């Protein structure tokens, strides 16, 4: 991470999300809620379409954090609010989720990072914050 200062930006990460990713995540996480794979069920509960697992979107934020930190073990405290759904169409292109971050605070042995996670113009995670250890 090198020398850090408040206001430092994390490199922007862009992740493409398709229906196939949601199926893989459902299996790996054992979260089989049908709103993440069935258009019929998603529509029946008033959603605009199949949506990504909130935890999948959170994991993409975690991926941006661990990429920046150099090791997933450095991310010690990570919290988000799921404010808007990521609607994933049934096509090959899917959608793009873009993760930005900024160093908000440097404390003893750790930095606090604020993430902005967007899908198109919409911010999909709120109060996305993490504490990343700077100890080796």
């Amino acid at each position, binding site marked *: 991470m090198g020398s850090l200062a408040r206001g430092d930006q994390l490199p922007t990460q862009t992740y493409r999300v398709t229906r196939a990713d949601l199926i893989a995540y459902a299996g790996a*996480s054992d979260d089989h809620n049908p709103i993440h794979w069935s258009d019929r069920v998603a529509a029946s509960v008033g959603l605009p379409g199949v949506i990504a697992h909130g935890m999948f979107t959170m*994991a*993409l934020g975690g991926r941006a954090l661990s990429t920046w930190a150099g090791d997933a073990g450095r991310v010690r405290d990570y919290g988000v609010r799921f404010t808007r759904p990521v609607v994933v169409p049934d096509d090959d292109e899917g959608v793009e989720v873009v993760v930005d971050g900024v160093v908000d605070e440097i404390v003893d042995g750790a930095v606090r990072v604020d993430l902005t996670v967007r899908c198109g113009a919409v911010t999909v995670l709120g109060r996305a914050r993490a504490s990343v250890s700077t100890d080796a």
Partner: protein
Amino acid sequence: MALDADLTGRSYDLKAPYDVSRIDIARFAAAVGEADPVHTDAAVARERGHRDVLAPVTFPIVVASGAMHQLLADPSVEIELRHLVHSAQRFESARAICAGDVLSARLTVESVRRAAGTSLIATRTEITDADGAHVCTSHATLAHRSPDGTGG
């Protein structure tokens, strides 16, 4: 209806301790697109000071959700999965999870609040290792909207 204050304070344990395997970690890492070999190559993980392959940041949800499944399976709790939305999540980790960990988890319902036909269920899950040491606290808030819109 059990989706009321009655639920507050109830606890649910994982049915059996979760044996974290290298395959579990590799599969989860692949599913979230984590390409760092620390998740798949034990030699790389050891070089970086970990005991074995390292779990991705949000992997504790897999363990915590086992305890959540016990809450959802409680016949006295009327929650329908399709009406359940995750509204907030936080992990406070004392240490990273590695392959070989044998983890227990206890979920406690901290509060149930109703607003505009939705019940907000705040939960806390303590994940501990085979020695009983704290590994991670997972805080999950769930929003449940009943089919009749009462939030129950």
